[in-house]
């Protein structure tokens, strides 16, 4: 494929991103009218953009670059359609938005001792559980050795992230403690009892 065709496809991909985000923006503006076609069309164009970028940028790079393009294009639409000034002396420009969000439930850190306990659970205890789970993944994930290691290295931070959120959300400290200690124990057993 010639360089000119590849560049043309890249330009078409950029246009597809712009039109795709525009359709999604229109769908947002049209609510509550029917807008399924706009949403489907918008997303279809965004996927098409990634496909069109592939000959110029490569498959995986194309997806990454088109994702960046979508973020930039959407931000431009937000800036254009946002309300930036106070509506003094005239009717406010309607901005479609749903009612205000929920209020957070009371967290575990209601007293100093509970705060210290929650921080200990969110950091060292969660980290220990995530590392134990990572080692178990490294041992038990099927496939090549590199696949096992990478699964463990990417899996452990996700488990840690989930554990951090849980320990900061759940008022029942005993439940989070038992959950994390239980996870660590199960993973340790899985590692110890692995077939040698």
């Amino acid at each position, binding site marked *: 494929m010639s360089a000119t065709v590849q560049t043309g496809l890249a330009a078409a991909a950029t246009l597809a991103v712009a039109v795709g985000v525009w359709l999604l923006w229109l769908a947002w503006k049209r609510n*509550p009218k029917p807008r399924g076609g706009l949403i489907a069309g918008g997303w279809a164009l965004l996927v098409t953009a990634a496909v069109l970028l592939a000959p110029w940028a490569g498959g995986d790079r194309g997806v990454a670059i088109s994702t960046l*393009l979508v973020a930039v294009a*959407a931000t431009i639409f937000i800036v254009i*359609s946002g309300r930036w000034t106070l509506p003094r002396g005239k009717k406010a420009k309607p901005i479609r938005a749903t009612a205000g969000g929920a209020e957070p439930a009371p967290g575990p850190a209601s007293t100093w001792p509970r705060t210290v306990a929650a921080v200990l659970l969110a950091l060292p205890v969660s980290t220990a559980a995530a590392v134990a789970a990572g080692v178990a993944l490294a041992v038990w994930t099927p496939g090549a050795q590199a696949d096992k290691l990478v699964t463990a290295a990417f899996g452990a*931070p996700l488990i*840690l992230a989930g554990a951090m959120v849980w320990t900061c959300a759940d008022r029942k400290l005993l439940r989070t403690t038992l959950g994390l200690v239980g996870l660590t124990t199960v993973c340790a057993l899985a590692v110890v009892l692995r077939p040698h």
Partner: protein
Amino acid sequence: MDAATPPESAKAEQVNRPSIWPKVPPTFVRAVLSGHSGLGLVAAALIYIVCLSGTVAVFLNELKLWEEPAAPTQTHASPQAVQAFAEAITKAHPKAGVVYMGLPTPEMPRLHAYVGEQVFVADAQGRIAGEASAPWAHFLEHLHIYLHLPETVGLIVVGLVGAALTGLIISGFLAHPKIFRDAFAFRWAGTKRLSQADLHNRLSVWGAPFHLVVAWTGAYIGLASLLLFAVAGVTTKGDLAKVTAPIYGVVPKPDPTPAPFPDLVKTLAWFDGKPELEPTLISLTALGTRGQLVEVNAVLPKRLVYAERYEFDGQGRMIKTLGLSNDGLGKQVFASSYPLHFGSFGGLPVKIAYGLLGVALCVVTSSGVTIWLTRRRDRGRPAPRLEKAWAAIVWGSTATLALSAALWLALKVSPVWGFWAPLALLIAAAVAVKDAPFWTVGLRTATSVTLAAIVVVHAVKFGGLSFSGVALGVNLSLLALAAVIAPWRRPLDRRAF
């Protein structure tokens, strides 16, 4: 209904069609929101500093060229020059265990070599032209990767910060089920809490893929060492090299018996006639011994992986490839994670997008804490000291980051001290006196003035070199940033809402 949503929208909301998004139980939403808030408050300051330094570090190569504008540049290095440079570096630093040689690329047009933490550059003939270690850029790199803590500890702490950010991103979406439905709603002119919530949520939605990838890969990079130690302890009796061999390759046993210096001319000749491979980095281990190792990283232009690695013997014969680009999904994911984290897979346009989305992540972090503080104030339980401290962290860290560059360029003051000491003083002063708006406006002004001062200092120090090439681009960007950050307009009077 929030204060800034007009009545028309309220009516529209009542006749709204069923949402395409699944219903989430309110108790679950409130619980996750609690975790999101709690974790955010605990980790916000570190997340902000890591994100800020990471955003600037996207342009690390440009900053290195800007900091050392007098060092020689070249678009291409002849194999003979590479050979001569390698021999000169080895002769000058015979005890260097590993020497990394960077070949000229469009992003770093220098033939250079890393010896420990020093960087040496070569002229066109491969003679050592001098040192170009770019200490401020090095400081920035260490701030982002280690927070200037001892390296192993720092890497783990930054990994924990990455995991916390990953948790915040995921919990943010679980805690805001309407966040996609309102994906374009932005009401800056509204109550403070509403404007900050819109800012927080809109940037979060559209930046989500970038934010998640950066946070997750950051957590992976930071925590990998901890995990590898644990895996090695369990499976190989602590032999780390054995554990990492499937990814990094087998490290040959040291053999100090003298051997001829490797033939890098022949090594590089192997890449002739292979336009799809662009050699960019040569790592030389235990040179001049039988145990020597010559590895060449070659970039594959249309791939996300950072490079494919080729191993050569002393006579320049290619022995094997590591398989980062084609040997299984695990290796390819591993080799793609670094370009995805650092934004080094698409030249300057991708870097600019990473820079903008990095700023967005800083804004999301800042507005998240501001929403919590504003909610407290709205409920009659203001936390003025925390408000001031947060203003000092957000704008103080930008001001002292700029200050560290200005002081380094002007007076050779250690950037580590130039950043952390004034930041600590600013936070302490902010907690003690005045109010949050004073510190926000004052520190924005200070940041703006300091950014402009950096350009002046650079111009005085380097003269005409400040106004050409990459240095000119960086200086103009600094002036543009100074103009954008300056508090030109009075804040909106939100009491009208």
